[in-house]
């Protein structure tokens, strides 16, 4: 019987700074056979161990359509994430998973897709976006709306151009405040000019700027808990239904396998039944 609590060792091959406090780690399992047999869905997560510090659930940000590695984007907010941030390339960490239901993207073949992301919430969406773009012919038009607090908090900036240049993809970015000096995470260096000339406002202000056929579109929403209710409200007003709004919930899953009890909402375990839920499922959860 496989011990579900026993991590496999992975090696950090590459580290990229996304913002002042978000880093993307490219990893692979030390055992080539495990890496070879790895299969996951966008929206699933790994339990990442920094031995001696602890374990944390992190969504997978790479797409399953690209093999040989996987990527995790981690914001430095707690003990374990700080420990991960302190590691140099070549370091070893423990990985359990993948866990969770993930996005069942084959269920939305033929549909138009709308992605609404906020801050680090773009990480799981990036996995799905790249997966969709790698299987482009299965989907209709794609719109990606992304907002962050300040220009310095935008993640995966390099990929924005790649996405924008794909056929039938609309990509819009906004920031809550254009003033870079407000960014706690990444203040500009002395004398550095990083003037923001793009959209300013919360992510919902981008919705009127794209053409959406709500009957044929599925919306994927992922971001900080404060953002999600506002986005859902606006999407419902546009004509989306409880079933065409898909979102994710954040909990601190300690075990990932529905045992430790920390992620329960009503009778659902976010780590097993989620973290991806339709708005209808979310509303049905008692609590």
């Amino acid at each position, binding site marked *: 019987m496989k*011990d579900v609590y026993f991590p496999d*060792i992975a090696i950090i091959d590459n580290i990229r700074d996304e913002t002042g406090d978000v880093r993307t780690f490219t990893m692979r399992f030390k055992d080539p056979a495990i890496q070879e047999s790895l299969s996951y869905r966008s929206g699933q997560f790994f339990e990442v161990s920094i031995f001696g510090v602890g374990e944390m659930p992190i969504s997978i940000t790479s797409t399953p359509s690209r093999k040989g590695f996987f990527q995790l984007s981690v914001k430095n907010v707690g003990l374990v994430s700080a420990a991960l941030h302190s590691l140099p390339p070549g370091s070893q960490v423990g990985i359990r998973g993948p866990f969770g239901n993930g996005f069942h993207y084959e269920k939305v073949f033929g549909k138009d897709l709308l992605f609404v992301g906020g801050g680090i919430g773009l990480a799981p969406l990036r996995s799905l976006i790249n997966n969709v773009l790698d299987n482009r012919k299965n989907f209709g038009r794609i719109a990606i709306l992304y907002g962050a607090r300040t220009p310095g908090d935008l993640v995966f900036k390099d990929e924005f151009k790649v996405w924008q240049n794909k056929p039938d993809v609309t990509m819009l970015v906004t920031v809550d405040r254009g003033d870079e000096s407000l960014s706690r995470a990444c203040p500009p260096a002395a004398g550095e000019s990083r003037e923001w000339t793009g959209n300013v406002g919360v992510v919902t202000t981008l919705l009127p700027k794209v053409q959406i056929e709500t009957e044929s579109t599925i919306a994927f929403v992922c971001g900080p808990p404060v953002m999600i209710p506002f986005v859902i409200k606006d999407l419902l007003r546009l004509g989306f239904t409880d079933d065409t709004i898909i979102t994710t919930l954040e*909990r601190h899953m300690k075990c990932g396998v529905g045992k430790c009890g920390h992620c329960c909402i009503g009778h659902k375990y976010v780590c097993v039944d989620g973290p991806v839920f339709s708005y209808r499922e979310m509303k049905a959860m008692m609590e």
Partner: protein
Amino acid sequence: MKNSKFEIRNSKFPPDAGIWTITKDNLFALMDVFIKTREVIAPVQGHGGEVIFYPIESIEDVAWDWQYVNAVLPPKRFFLPQTEIMFEYSFDNGCRITPRYDDQVRMIFGIRPCDVNALVFLDRFFGGGSLSKKAPDQEPLFPDSHYIKRRANTFIIAFGCHQPGENCFCVCCEAGPFLEEDYDLQLTCINEGYVVEVGSARGLKIIYGNEHFFRLAWANEVQELARIKHDAVNKFKDTCAYMSKAIRRVTEGKVDDSLWEKLGERCFDCGGCSYVCPTCCCYNVVDVPLAQKGGIRTRIWDSCAFAGFTRIAGGEILRSDKKDRLKRRFFHKLSYQYIQKNKRHGCVGCGRCITTCLADINMPLVVDAVRKQ
């Protein structure tokens, strides 16, 4: 068509195992044999007079049937220890992790029917369906090998209860005072000896392997056993917990939040209810560095009564109000949504929360309040 599940639940195992008796002296002698060959856990009277489950070295240590109603703590910790080592890690030459399992062969002697039913509940939960015969229709989902190993290595000698304690309400929870199944051997004190019922193949093996200690029960002893079982049920007080209406109201979300608010004002956040509850099994995961280059990963008991239980990245606490935490606790214990998952509700009527809670928040009280609200 015959329903196979129904058959399993209602047939005695094994059908021809018979009912046996053993004298007190022979039971002592048999226990001496067990103590030499495995770890025997039995009720032991501690210094303060309270009875707890503890490994015994001699038959003299045992608190016998007539000396206690139930141990103050459930024997949960022999299956899910308060602190359990999951594996060892070391940093020598890259990361290395070594699994750690408890392979100790055990016998729990003197466990009460309520606690056995709690184990069956945990079997379903940790086994993900793989251990419990009550849900043979389900594929195991993430079976917990640590729990399963301990459980499979533990032999159960249960003691039926002919006299309920003052806080007992197992009759309301279909968890006692005697077991129909899920034990290896069940003993009931009759006259100067014990009547022995057989509940499993390995229970029967113990009888056949030590046949000189046992004899088949006479007809009058079998009758006496039936009478004791019948009388035991009638000894429970009238003020029992009527679960079903409470279950319905909790399931339908019809309990007014004012109840949880009122109870929340009393709750001390101590987590005692979860620690003494034989079916509570939430845990936290903590790494313990033991040396410069290594340490252990442990899981330790946690409680949904604690504020930090739902803390997420960035420090936000999702159930920051005590009323939300209490509501959560009783939803988990009573709602039909969970009964469907676990094949029973989450209370076995042991009454330990009544004894333990400083604020007098316990299952019969909550059930009553929900029912009458």
